[in-house]
């Protein structure tokens, strides 16, 4: 692969979107490009977008699957608003994505798929490659399929297998265009097809053919380079939110020295956590695919009662079903981590699209006065730390904790600076081992005066036999009690013990220290809000940003922070759920800014909105 002289241009950032049919391997292609890019040291952020249908009819608009990767020589916060480069494997992929392309964007199209039949499937009477539709774009027509089949002609594999390798041809071409190191992809193919060596060769050959095509064809006259970003020293890997969350749970079990029990029922977009944890039995992790969402949390709670770190993972509809058991966990005052990877609702809604509309459900969605802790990760890699934090709160304060991830952070990816295991928090739990009353009895609801947590006495501990349940319990003894004063005391105590959980003060990013407007977010909107604030500041405007990780309890300093700004804007992917909390709790006139499209905010959308607020009040 010796390089002939081609012009090399330096870029500071690029957004590429790979789009094709669900069967074209676009997620894999994007993943590999991302990994190559990570190896080079660029900062990265990715956004996959795939249909809920497993295989919609080939070549149709509902079947389009895409993967967007944003990489830069500086630190970036989002997967990019709009792609500079679209790789369209068929007419459907072109049609589904064209509207989001800015003028001048590069479009690489697989011309082999632009047949009359495929064009008709998506309603193109004439090929958009020929009728001027793409005027204003830099179109690169490439016969991806036939060149791949040609390159593999001597390998003796079926035509179908040869055609399937076209995504590697495309990856090879893009890897050449952006000067990516590709050794890891060749190694990856060896691992992936270890059981079928002929496919290792086919895919590696297709990759090299794509690379060589870029180098030799006159159709591509320019190569690009994006220099490594300045990142903190250390070892990195690229990680999705669901992977990071899973590893955070493994880390929590290790640091707590407890077995982890995951009860789960498959649901998009949370199932990958079940898949990941099921691979880590060597850490003493049991995963149970339960008969339903209710059984999943029930089994997790049963395991918690037995002294394990009980976890259940789901999405909004599952949280609704689990609600009764969450209330039981609150009454039993046992640790439990409930992961809600939010998706667009209500009901089945749009299972593969993102939303933040379960905040009310997490905060309030139970019968009775049933407070618990709620936290939300702000980025894919932050899911690791958020999972650890959820486990820490659950174990220390003996409470259910809802971890509100969402589809955007769960499936998006970014580089993750690997933490040092020794520096992760020690989550070791002191189980009750002896009676705690002067008369030699064991009082299951005698609280630690500092944490207000009750003792965790697990079955198998002699002398501490006791009965607990969902009926109201008398203070200290845990006996059934219908005493009015006791009920009032217990309700208030359960609320107070959640309110008393120490959480870090919220940080405010206000570099000019004279901002009038504060933008307050929570969870996965951190990236786009941060990018919008950065853009405004680069244009000389002042704005402050604060982001909530803890939604219950809220940081102690939040009221003071909010009141120190003239205007508070709260962007959310819902109809204003956090804004309502802020208004009700702090009497601050928080202005909601809402988008419920199933898509994450673009930085540009927020920049426009915030600019208006900053300039016009």
């Amino acid at each position, binding site marked *: 692969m010796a390089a002939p002289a081609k012009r090399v241009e330096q870029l500071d950032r690029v957004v590429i979107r790979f789009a094709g049919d669900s069967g074209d391997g676009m997620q894999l292609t994007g993943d590999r490009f991302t990994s190559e890019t990570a190896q080079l040291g660029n900062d990265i952020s990715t956004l996959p977008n795939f249909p809920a249908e497993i295989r919609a009819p080939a070549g149709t608009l509902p079947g389009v699957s895409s993967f967007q990767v944003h990489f830069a020589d500086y630190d970036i916060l989002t997967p990019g608003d709009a792609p500079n480069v679209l790789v369209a494997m068929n007419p459907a992929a072109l049609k589904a994505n064209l509207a989001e392309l800015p003028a001048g964007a590069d479009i690489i199209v697989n011309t082999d798929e632009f047949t009359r039949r495929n064009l008709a499937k998506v309603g193109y009477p004439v090929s958009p490659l020929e009728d001027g539709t793409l005027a204003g774009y830099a179109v690169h027509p490439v016969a991806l399929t036939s060149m791949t089949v040609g390159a593999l002609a001597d390998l003796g594999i079926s035509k179908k297998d040869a055609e399937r390798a076209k995504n590697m041809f495309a990856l090879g071409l893009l890897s050449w265009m952006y000067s990516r190191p590709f050794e890891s992809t060749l190694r990856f193919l060896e691992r992936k097809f270890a059981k079928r060596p002929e496919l290792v060769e086919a895919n590696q050959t297709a990759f090299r053919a794509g690379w060589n095509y870029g180098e030799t064809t006159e159709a591509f006259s320019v190569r690009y380079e994006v220099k490594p970003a300045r990142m903190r020293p250390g*070892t*990195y890997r690229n990680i999705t939110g669901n992977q990071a969350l899973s590893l955070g749970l493994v880390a929590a079990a290790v640091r707590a020295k407890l077995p982890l029990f995951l009860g789960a029922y498959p649901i998009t977009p949370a199932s990958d956590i079940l898949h990941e944890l099921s691979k880590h*039995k060597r850490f003493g992790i049991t995963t149970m695919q339960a008969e339903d969402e209710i*059984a999943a949390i029930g089994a997790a709670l*049963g*395991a918690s*009662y037995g002294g394990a770190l009980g976890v259940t993972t789901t999405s909004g509809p599952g949280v609704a079903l689990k609600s009764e058991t969450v209330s039981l966990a609150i009454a039993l005052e046992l640790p439990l981590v409930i992961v809600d990877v939010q998706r667009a609702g209500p009901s089945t809604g749009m299972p593969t699209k993102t939303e933040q509309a379960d905040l009310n459900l997490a905060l309030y969605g139970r019968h009775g006065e049933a407070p618990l802790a709620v936290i939300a990760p702000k980025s894919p890699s932050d899911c690791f730390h958020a999972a650890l934090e959820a486990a820490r709160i659950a174990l220390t304060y003996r409470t259910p904790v809802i971890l509100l991830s969402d589809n955007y952070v769960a499936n998006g990816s970014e580089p993750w600076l690997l933490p040092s295991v020794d520096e992760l928090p020690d989550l070791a739990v002191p189980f009750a081992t002896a009676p705690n009353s002067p008369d030699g009895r064991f009082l299951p609801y005698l609280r630690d005066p500092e944490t207000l947590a009750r003792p965790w006495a697990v079955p198998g501990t002699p002398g501490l036999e006791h009965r607990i349940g969902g009926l109201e319990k008398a203070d200290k003894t845990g006996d059934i009690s219908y005493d009015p004063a006791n009920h009032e005391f217990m309700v208030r105590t359960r609320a107070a013990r959640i309110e008393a959980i120490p959480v870090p003060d919220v940080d405010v990013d206000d570099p000019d220290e004279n901002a009038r407007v504060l933008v307050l977010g929570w969870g996965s909107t951190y990236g786009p809000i941060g990018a919008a604030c950065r853009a405004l500041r680069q244009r000389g405007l002042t704005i402050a940003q604060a982001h909530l990780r803890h939604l219950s309890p809220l940081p102690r300093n939040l009221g003071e922070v909010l009141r120190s700004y003239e205007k508070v804007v709260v962007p959310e992917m819902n109809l204003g759920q956090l804004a309502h909390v802020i208004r009700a709790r702090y009497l601050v006139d928080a202005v909601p800014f809402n988008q419920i499209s199933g898509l994450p905010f673009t930085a540009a959308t927020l920049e426009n909105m915030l600019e208006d607020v900053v300039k016009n009040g």
Partner: protein
Amino acid sequence: MASPVALKLTAKDFKSDQEVRWCPGCGDYAILAAVQGFMPELGIPRENIVFVSGIGCSSRFPYYMNTYGVHSIHGRAPAIATGLSASRPDLSVWVVTGDGDALSIGGNHLIHALRRNVNLKILLFNNRIYGLTKGQYSPTSELGKITKSTPAGSADSPFNPISLALGAEATFVARTIDSDRKHLQSVLRAAAAHEGSAFVEIYQNCNIFNDGAFDLIKDADTRDEHLIRLEQGQPITFGRFSVVHPEGSFGLKVQEGGTPIVHDATVDDPAYAFALSRLSGSDLNTTPIGVFRDVQRPSYDEIVRKQLLDAQASVSGTPEEMLNDLLGSGDTWTIL
């Protein structure tokens, strides 16, 4: 396991300090006394025994046992107990439930616990009525049952709990009666000895809302004509009747005379136990009690445990070292 002699436990040791609050005359008292009386035989220390219940009159049971116990939510006890049992194979986990709890709201969890063969001893107190909510018909009430919620008679046919459990692939299925302490304890003994799910239906009298539901098979002057005692290795006969396998047909039937079949609960094919279960309808006319089925197959707990142990057998290094390797797995890069 410690021997009962070494533990020196008595029925009294299994009584908690809570006042028992079932209605006077409730069949639950007899079951509680029978269980407390039988527990010492198990030779299991009290701290290693857990009773998990759902909601309903029967589900108050754990409060009265001086063991570990959880009174959970309606229908969910099998699910909660599954998580406990699968993660703590050292414990003896008992589920106490009722006909509404197990067969209505919790039907799904019951069948899945049985299918998985979780190592649970499930005691279903069947009084064929909702007691705690004051007298509505239950999923085991006879068709046409007149109750507060069905003044014109219930329109839905009842479950046969034994048939249901067998259909769910239960490995141990038995039926007994609250008032027959000796029989009840013998069934509990067999259930406790069974590895895997043991399902025990206990006919229990609700003297407030469904009094006398089981009199036909309890009263001295009628029971001999209606109650069939299943005993392992013994011909199945009662009164002047025999349970026979009619030639050329499926199933079993009751007739006078003929050659009775010999009971064998260990028959692997559940069709035999199922045929036995079909002898009794809601009229109780010919009602078998005893162990219908007692077969061996690996329990869920055992399989889960083995997978964990196998995965842990091949590891090297401390958990922290393993975690470090896991976090750094896949493609990594280092920035100096």
